[in-house]
């Protein structure tokens, strides 16, 4: 850690104590955030390796590198790792933990020990899922639909209990953030002065606290179904598998907003900084987060249009699902209007945000299309849906996550990465992503079903394009990992505010001292006010 020594480092949260114990038992929200970040990056790498293997398998029809059974396990592990172990905790647990207290002007979260506990609970749950991978794997897909999940001989109980335990970690984090936002704000940081990232994390926390327990209960019942023959969802024992789908999506649709809302929070921070302008409408962005959080609870039925549902219900769920697009559009138009006539400096985080905007709008519009029942019947369970949710979830969450890593890297480490490599890799990631998933829309529309091991020869060209795309995407991410690791130890000192942002976390040294601020911080200048210079800033 001495390599991180920068002029102010002696009091920084990274070096004030350096023993293993001082990390493992820390209650410092910044250290917990960093530990989460590393754990999540490991999960991302694991899920990414599974994805690359899946794409490689599809290079040719029939078996290429694995058997059909391995393929089934592999796509399940890809989904489970990416959704449950990476995307759902991704931005809140890492950047949320690190930044939320600083952004509200507090010394720490309200319950620091709960925060530490949520990290270890996450590790325990993730380990259990990893154990299930070794102990026979699991081949149900990440949605664990019964009756298959109650009869497959694979390691369903371990994987589901792992996800159940990870859910506890999510709930703990959510409770902590809600209470911190309510009770720990600096007296001068009123609700309408909070950085927009805090609003996004707060709305996310509400969903986490209210939706996760339902999922937890349902997963326990599936385990009971599998292990003790409680046949709630198993038609062979008199149960109703559609009931499972209702309860599962009651959580898992809001979970989509657990993934995307924090990403939107990142975008709302990055755009004003690099456009040097206040957001077009602060309130619209803040309230739209709650609109999404609320509507997100009322749309779950659109996953079940072909599972047996009355036409009226399907229509109602379709219309409610389209409301999501209204709130998303409010945000997108606000962001683009913020950019308009801004003094834009195109740095890596902003390039990732541009990728976000394109992929999110593209994926969002296909989302309105699949919310229409007549179209969904054609596209259901095809690659079209796979492409749609990868555009939204990966194109949305992953690009926002990468934007966040680059944007806050100097704050967290006190060092700068190579801007040139950053821009190059952002372009590579975007290009790789597009080449991977755009052909999948065409494949799906042409009738390629998801989760199939084999395909007819006339689909091969598009599959090959998609696989090549995955190599570009993989290369972009691998180079990113390389230069960030290099910058962690060798990068030049960043200084407290390398981007010239007004947001609150940039008003303290990089890396921040143990108690976040060296002296009583001043929040008189708003988080997005670029009309006045900050204290101590030559301008």
């Amino acid at each position: 850690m001495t390599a991180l020594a920068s002029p102010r480092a002696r009091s920084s949260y990274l070096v004030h104590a350096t023993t293993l114990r001082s990390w493992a038992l820390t209650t410092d929200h910044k250290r917990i955030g960093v530990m989460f970040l590393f754990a999540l990056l490991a999960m991302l790498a694991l899920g990414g390796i599974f994805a690359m293997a899946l794409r490689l398998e599809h290079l040719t029809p029939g078996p290429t590198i694995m058997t059909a059974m391995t393929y089934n396990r592999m796509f399940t592990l890809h989904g489970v790792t990416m959704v449950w172990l990476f995307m759902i905790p991704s931005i809140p647990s890492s950047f949320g933990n690190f930044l939320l207290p600083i952004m509200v002007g507090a010394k720490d979260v309200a319950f620091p020990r709960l925060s530490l506990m949520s990290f270890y609970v996450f590790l325990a749950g993730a380990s259990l899922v990893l154990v299930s991978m070794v102990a026979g794997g699991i081949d149900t897909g990440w949605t664990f639909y019964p009756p298959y999940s109650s009869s497959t001989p694979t390691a369903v109980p371990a994987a589901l209990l792992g996800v159940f335990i990870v859910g506890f970690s999510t709930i703990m984090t959510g409770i902590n953030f809600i209470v911190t936002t309510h009770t720990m704000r600096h007296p001068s940081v009123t609700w309408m002065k909070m950085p927009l990232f805090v609003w996004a994390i707060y709305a996310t926390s509400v969903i986490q606290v209210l939706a996760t327990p339902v999922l937890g209960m349902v997963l326990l019942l599936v385990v009971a179904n599998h292990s003790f023959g409680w046949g709630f969802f198993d038609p062979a024992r008199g149960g109703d598998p559609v009931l499972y789908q209702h309860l599962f999506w009651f959580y898992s649709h809001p979970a989509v907003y657990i993934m995307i809302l924090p990403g939107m929070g990142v975008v709302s921070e990055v755009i004003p900084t690099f456009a040097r302008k206040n957001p077009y409408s602060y309130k619209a962005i803040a309230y739209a987060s709650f609109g999404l959080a609320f509507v997100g609870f009322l749309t779950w039925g659109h996953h079940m249009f072909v599972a047996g549902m009355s036409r009226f219900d399907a229509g109602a769920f379709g219309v409610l699902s389209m409301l999501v697009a209204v709130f998303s559009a409010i945000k997108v138009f606000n962001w683009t209007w913020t950019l308009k006539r801004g003094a834009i400096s195109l740095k890596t985080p902003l390039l990732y945000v541009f990728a976000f905007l394109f992929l999110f709008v593209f994926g969002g519009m296909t989302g309105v299309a699949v919310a229409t029942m007549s179209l969904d019947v054609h596209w259901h369970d095809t690659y079209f849906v796979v492409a749609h949710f990868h555009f939204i979830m990966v194109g949305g969450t992953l690009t926002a996550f990468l934007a966040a890593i680059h944007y806050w890297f100097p704050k967290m480490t006190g060092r700068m990465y190579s801007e040139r490599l950053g821009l190059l890799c952002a372009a590579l990631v975007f290009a790789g992503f597009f080449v991977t998933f755009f052909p999948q829309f065409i494949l799906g529309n042409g009738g390629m079903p998801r989760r199939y091991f084999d395909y007819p020869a006339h689909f091969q060209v598009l599959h090959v394009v998609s696989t090549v795309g995955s190599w570009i995407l993989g290369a972009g991410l691998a180079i990113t990992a390389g230069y960030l690791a290099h910058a962690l130890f060798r990068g030049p000192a960043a200084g407290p505010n390398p981007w010239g942002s007004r947001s609150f976390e940039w008003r303290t040294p990089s890396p921040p001292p143990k108690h976040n601020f060296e002296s009583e911080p001043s929040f008189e200048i708003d988080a997005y006010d670029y009309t006045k210079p900050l204290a101590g800033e030559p301008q």
Partner: protein
Amino acid sequence: MTQPASFVPAEQFADAEKQAHAARLGMWVFLASELLLFGALFTLFAAYRVEFPSAFRASVEHNTKVLGSINTAVLLVSSTCVAGAVHALRGGRTKLSAGLVASTAVLGAIFLVIKLTEYAKHFADGIYPGGEGRFFEEHHVRGFSEFWTLYFGMTGLHAVHVTVGMTLLTVMLVGIVRGRVTPATVHRLEVAALYWHLVDIIWIFLWPLLYLA
């Protein structure tokens, strides 16, 4: 409800009042989460009750109504005790408070004993979770297995919560005796009491659904 707290707050809090507020708010948010946990089971119950009304009615009539109703009374009295304990501690009557907390935990234990007696009766009748047992051979219609499995699932999860609540109350009792839970830090007892009230409220919904309706 709140009076100015006066103890040394944890370092991240500006003052003791804020810390007490955070503790209360944290528990309320957690209780909301708990309600949704049971909510999934209530949803299942509603769905299957609509599907199999006659099997559910027959099962309710077969249930141990008297023991279940006595248990309701036991829990309601215990909740009154813990509310009194908070009131007493706030008024500085530490010994009375400790006594009331102890009675609450004991009533919780009585509840569990009665609950297990009920389970024993069901097992004797050949009713086991998952539709196993003699009873379901005699009642070979869909719906019976759903009711009884839900019955065991819901009351079982509730019993787990009773046990957690009793543990919390025991910790509070030790805290009062050792002087860590005092009139100044009454919020600690308040938070534990809130949890106990949740246990009570869940039962208030389970009782009519499983024994009376």
